[in-house]
C-alpha cells in the first residue's frame, strides 16, 4: 500500500481523505500539501499539513504518490494547474475508483480521477486525467470525457457524447446522445443539453416556479 499526499485542505480534500482511507483504496493518506500562503493549520483530519514549497523528505515524490483534491475553481483550471505542478515535482498522481462504481470501460480512468459510488461507466467510454465524478452519474458507451472535467452527482451523459476539457457538469444535469460540449463550459444544476455547446459557454436550467399556494393548503399531499 503506497503512501499518498493530498494537495489541498478543503472540502474536496476531506472527501478524498475519506475515500482513500477506505478498504477499497490502494493508498494510505500520509499528509496534506498546500501552497505556503494557504498554510493556516499544521494538522487536518489528524494528519500533517505541509507547504508545497518545503515538503519534508518523507512526503516527497520518491516516497509518496499524490492526489490533487481541488474542486471546480476557475472552471477546473486550478486543479489542472496543481496537477501539472505536482507532476513537475515528480509525483505520480493516483486515482480512486469506488468499489461501488461500475466501470466497464477499459479506457478509463486516467490519473488523478475520483470516481465515487454508484457511478456507471459503460464500455468504450474514455475518461481523461483529473476527472472528478461525484457519484450516481452515468456515462454511456462511446462517450469521451476530456481532462479535468467535473461531473456532479447524478449527472447523466448519453452515448457518443464529447465533453471538452475543464467543463463542469452540474448536479443532475443531462446531456443527450451525440452532443459535443466544448472546453471550459459550465452546465448548471439540472440543465438539459440537447445541442452542441461552444467553448466557454454557460447553460442554466429553467428554475422551478414557486406556487402561490403554501404547502399546508395543498389538498393531495
Amino acid at each position, binding site marked *: 500500500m503506497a503512501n499518498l499526499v493530498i494537495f489541498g485542505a478543503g472540502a474536496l480534500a476531506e472527501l478524498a481523505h475519506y475515500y482513500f482511507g477506505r478498504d477499497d483504496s490502494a493508498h494510505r493518506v500520509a499528509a496534506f500539501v498546500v501552497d505556503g500562503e494557504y498554510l493556516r493549520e499544521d494538522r487536518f483530519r489528524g494528519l500533517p499539513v505541509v507547504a508545497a514549497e518545503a515538503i519534508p523528505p518523507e512526503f516527497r515524490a520518491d516516497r509518496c504518490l499524490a492526489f490533487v483534491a481541488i474542486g471546480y475553481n*476557475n472552471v477546473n483550471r486550478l486543479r489542472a494547474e496543481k496537477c501539472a505542478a505536482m507532476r513537475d515535482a515528480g509525483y505520480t498522481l493516483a486515482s480512486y475508483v469506488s468499489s461501488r462504481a461500475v466501470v466497464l470501460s477499459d479506457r478509463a480512468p486516467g490519473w488523478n480521477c475520483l470516481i465515487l459510488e454508484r457511478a*456507471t461507466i459503460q464500455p468504450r467510454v474514455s475518461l481523461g486525467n483529473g476527472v472528478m465524478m461525484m457519484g450516481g452519474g452515468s456515462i454511456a458507451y462511446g462517450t469521451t470525457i476530456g481532462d479535468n472535467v467535473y461531473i456532479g452527482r447524478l449527472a447523466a451523459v448519453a452515448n457518443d457524447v464529447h465533453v471538452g476539457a475543464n467543463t463542469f457538469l452540474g448536479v443532475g444535469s443531462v446531456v443527450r446522445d451525440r452532443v459535443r460540449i466544448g472546453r471550459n463550459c459550465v452546465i448548471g444544476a439540472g440543465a438539459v443539453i*440537447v445541442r452542441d455547446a461552444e467553448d466557454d459557454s454557460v447553460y442554466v436550467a429553467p428554475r422551478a416556479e414557486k406556487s402561490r399556494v403554501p404547502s399546508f393548503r395543498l389538498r393531495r399531499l
Partner: protein
Amino acid sequence: MADIVVFGAGATAELANFYFSRDGAHRVVAFVVDAGHLREDRFQGLPVVAAESVPFRFRAAQCRGFVAMGYGKVNRLRAEKCAAMRAAGYDLVSYVSPHAVTMSEYPPGWNCFILEGAMIQPGVRLGNDVQVWPNSTIAHGATIADHTFIGSRVTVAGNVHVGERCFLGIGSTIRDHVRLGAGCVVGAGAVILGNTEDNSVYTAPPAKKHDTPSFRLRRI
C-alpha cells in the same frame, strides 16, 4: 448458460455481446442480421449470418436468441424482430446485470436488457423486451409494458403505468400514478406530471445559454 444468437450488428449488439460475455450468463455464438444489412461476415470476432439462411448450428433447435436493437421507429423495429425470431422458434433470453438491484417478485419477461445500477422496486412488472439503461429507477408498483426503452438515469415513480413501445429519454422523470399511452416519446430530461395520450411526444425545456462566458463567472 445457453448458446445465443444476437439479432443485430450495431452498438446495442456490441453491448449485448459485452454484457452476456462478461457475466457468463450466456455465450454469444453468432450475430444475425437481415440479408439486406449483411455487410461483413464477422463482428466482434464472431460470424454474422443472414436471417434468411441461418446455418443449422445457429438455429432455434441449438440456440436461444436475443434481439439487440435500439429504439428505431419508436421501438417498433425491435418489436418486429422479436416477433420474427420467436416465429423462427427462438426462445428469447433476458439480461439482468449483477449490478442492478431487482427487488420485484415478478421476473422480467423475455428479451429484457436491465443494465448496471438499475433499481427495480417491489411490485414492479416489466413486460417483454423492456430495456432499462444504467442507473434508472422504477419505483414500487409501476408497470412497464412490452418493447419500452428506458434510457439512463430515468426515474419512474410509484404506480406509474408505461404503455407499450414507449421511449423514455435519458434523465427523464415520471411522477407517481401517471399513465403513459403506447408509443410515447419522452425526451431527454423531460418531466411528466400527468397522463399522456398514445403516440404523444414530450420534450424538456432546453437549458438556456447565458450571455456570460464561463471565464467571466465569479463563483466558479
